[in-house]
């Protein structure tokens, strides 16, 4: 039979252990909490990246054992004129989308930042393109841009120099402009909302002071508003670069990278190489090149931001 003294001793031991556990818990807790995300990142991000990198050093044929290829895929990549063309298109596409989406986003944010009747409704409507799913959006645009019956032709034909319906997605130059335009249209509400939020943090006293000092609205914008929101604009530029770099759905469904490769970005090229031509190891090498491009762009922007921060003290 257990005596009272023994019970008390056991309780004291339990308490001591509980205390130890509690003391240990703060040390373990962060690791325990981080474990799921580390496991997730490891399995779904780091491991695939490792496999992709590894694949780029092998030669793979469907259903056959892989063979070590060393740097052969990278040598091929450096001598592949199509690859350099695709890289050029990717960079031009990124710059064009950044300029168009952030430009329109900034313009619309400035308009929506002013007080006018129905502003809330206008803000809500502006966000609609961003909320539409990609695939239905593309299907609608394919109809709008159809050279035979697309509604856009009605407006295009109003222009005096246009006599025939333009082949929007068939002509290489028009296709590129169309794809950039649709990408920017789809993305600008996000940038606009973020800029709008930034505009509301611009100190009103500064704007009032500028006004009292006789600054015109244009001068006030360039001297007060723009410097105040420039960190936000820089961040958005980085985001726009990343978003446009990885854009696939819109391009693939609109043009498939054509016509004649006019809209073929690195992501489209990787997809075709891997999943249409089944050249997995070369696709992996292209993926590494794309990753380096994205990394370079991000690092450049981060460096600029750091410099700005240092200048601002």
């Amino acid at each position, binding site marked *: 039979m257990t005596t009272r003294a023994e019970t008390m001793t056991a309780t004291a031991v339990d308490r001591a252990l509980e205390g130890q556990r509690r003391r240990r818990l703060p040390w373990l807790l962060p690791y325990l909490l981080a474990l799921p995300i580390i496991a997730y990142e490891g399995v779904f991000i780091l491991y695939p990246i490792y496999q992709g990198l590894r694949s780029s050093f092998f030669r793979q044929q469907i*259903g056959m054992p892989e063979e070590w290829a060393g740097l052969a895929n990278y040598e091929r990549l450096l001598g592949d004129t199509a690859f350099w063309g695709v890289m050029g298109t990717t960079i031009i596409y990124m710059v064009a989308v950044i300029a168009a989406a952030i430009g329109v986003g900034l313009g619309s944010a400035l308009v929506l930042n002013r007080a006018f009747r129905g502003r809330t409704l206008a803000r809500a409507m502006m966000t609609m393109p961003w909320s539409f799913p990609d695939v239905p959006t593309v299907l609608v645009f394919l*109809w709008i841009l159809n050279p035979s019956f697309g509604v856009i032709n009605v407006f295009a034909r109003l222009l005096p120099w246009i006599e025939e319906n333009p082949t929007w997605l068939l*002509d290489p130059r028009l296709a590129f402009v169309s794809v950039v335009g649709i990408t920017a249209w789809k993305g600008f509400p996000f940038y606009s909302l973020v800029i709008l939020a930034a505009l509301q943090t611009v100190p009103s006293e500064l704007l009032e002071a500028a006004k009292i000092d006789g600054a015109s609205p244009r001068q006030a914008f360039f001297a007060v508003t723009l410097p105040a929101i420039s960190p936000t604009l820089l961040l958005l530029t980085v985001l726009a670069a990343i978003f446009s770099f990885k854009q696939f759905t819109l391009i693939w469904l609109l043009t498939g990278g054509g016509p004649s490769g006019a809209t073929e970005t690195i992501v489209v090229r990787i997809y075709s190489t891997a999943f249409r*031509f089944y050249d997995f190891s070369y696709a992996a090498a292209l993926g590494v090149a794309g990753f380096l491009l994205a990394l370079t762009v991000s690092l450049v922007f981060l460096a600029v931001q750091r410099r700005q921060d240092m200048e601002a003290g």
Partner: protein
Amino acid sequence: MSTDETTRSTILRPKLNRRHLLKTGSAAAVAGAATIGAKRSPAFAAPAVLQGEQITLRYGTWFWYEPGRAEAWRYMIEQFHAAQNEIRIEESGAPFDEFTNNIIVQLQAGGLDDDLVQTTPDLVLRLLRAGQLASLQDVIDSLGITTLSPAHDYITVDGQVHGLDVVTVVFGLLYNAQLFEDEGITTLPASVEEWVEVSQALTSRPDQFGMYSAHLTSEPESFWFQLQEWAMPFDGVWANEAGPQVNSEPIINAVSLFKTFYDTTFPQGSDDSTATRQWGDGQIAQQLIVSAAVNVYRTSAPELYPHIRSYSLPWESKRSIARIHPITVNANGANVDAAKEFVKFLYTPENYRELLTRQLDVIPAYDVGGLDEYFSDLPWLTGYEDISPTTPPDIMGDFIFNNQEFGQIVINRVTEVLTADRPVEEAMAQAQQELEELGGRLGL
């Protein structure tokens, strides 16, 4: 049997098959073999090895996503389930556009998930080369089939066939007879020039278009799949054992003809789904398209279906691409024998006839007999009757294994011809150079 019926039933057997028959015996022997086959397997019975244990087979195919064809296959599977209790078939696969990718990704990941895999002419070769396919020769032997279409030759290794065709599609010219009648066209084109003329007469943009063929880079597979057929009027091949042939005269002529049609008769910019809708609405007069499409139109455009006809290909050789789609058995699967039993069930003559007619197909893979009445009820069949079939490997040589990459290079240059008015010769010369580089890299 009337002369027409005799002609029809004879012609719809693959031509080489007929030659084979002449070599090996009389047509009567063939009919006898088919009859014997039918008598040997009037009803399906599972082999003893399978009895007492239920097996579920996964059949990976895109058929489940195709109107018309899906119903036909589900019916056949119901019949299979009713005929025995040991084997069950489970639907697997993906829509056609994603199907091949899914299978390749499975392969790359270690092996095929499905017991039965539906294949295309290209995919079957890849799987065969990767050692994934079981021989189905025992199925053919056990059914006593001696007239299997020679289109299976390219998947026969050491006398063992590794897939059995369940859908042969062949390109032909389908047209909307109502539009022809409205336009007062009573004489059907008999030459390429007349074909162009009639197509242009039927075009009244933007309301009506004389012809449609896929031409968008956003649909590269359709574009290339259909473009290949345009070489047939000129007896062209895209590649052969000597390498790519895209700057040869027949191919130059083919691309020029495509350009003429594009400029003057196509609904430019219409994708496949839009064109299907335009065709259903009576806005497109003709399509150079595979026979299997009619089954889709019967469901998707029931009002148009009675007006669909076909006419004899307006070129002398009547050459046209025929593509077999073999059902295959995963050699590394756990249920090879059971899977073969299902294939055997499908290939039993009465079941095969049922499948073929329910799918609205017109080219039997072996001399199954008993189809004359069915053929005579298909008014749109006429133009497919005198076709001289050729296979994808015949026109692609060893590039058949890299068909899509080859096609992408070609359609990139053809698009320049179509939309940027680049001279055909110049564009195809560049394509030839790019394809030779591809061949060099692939060691072809």
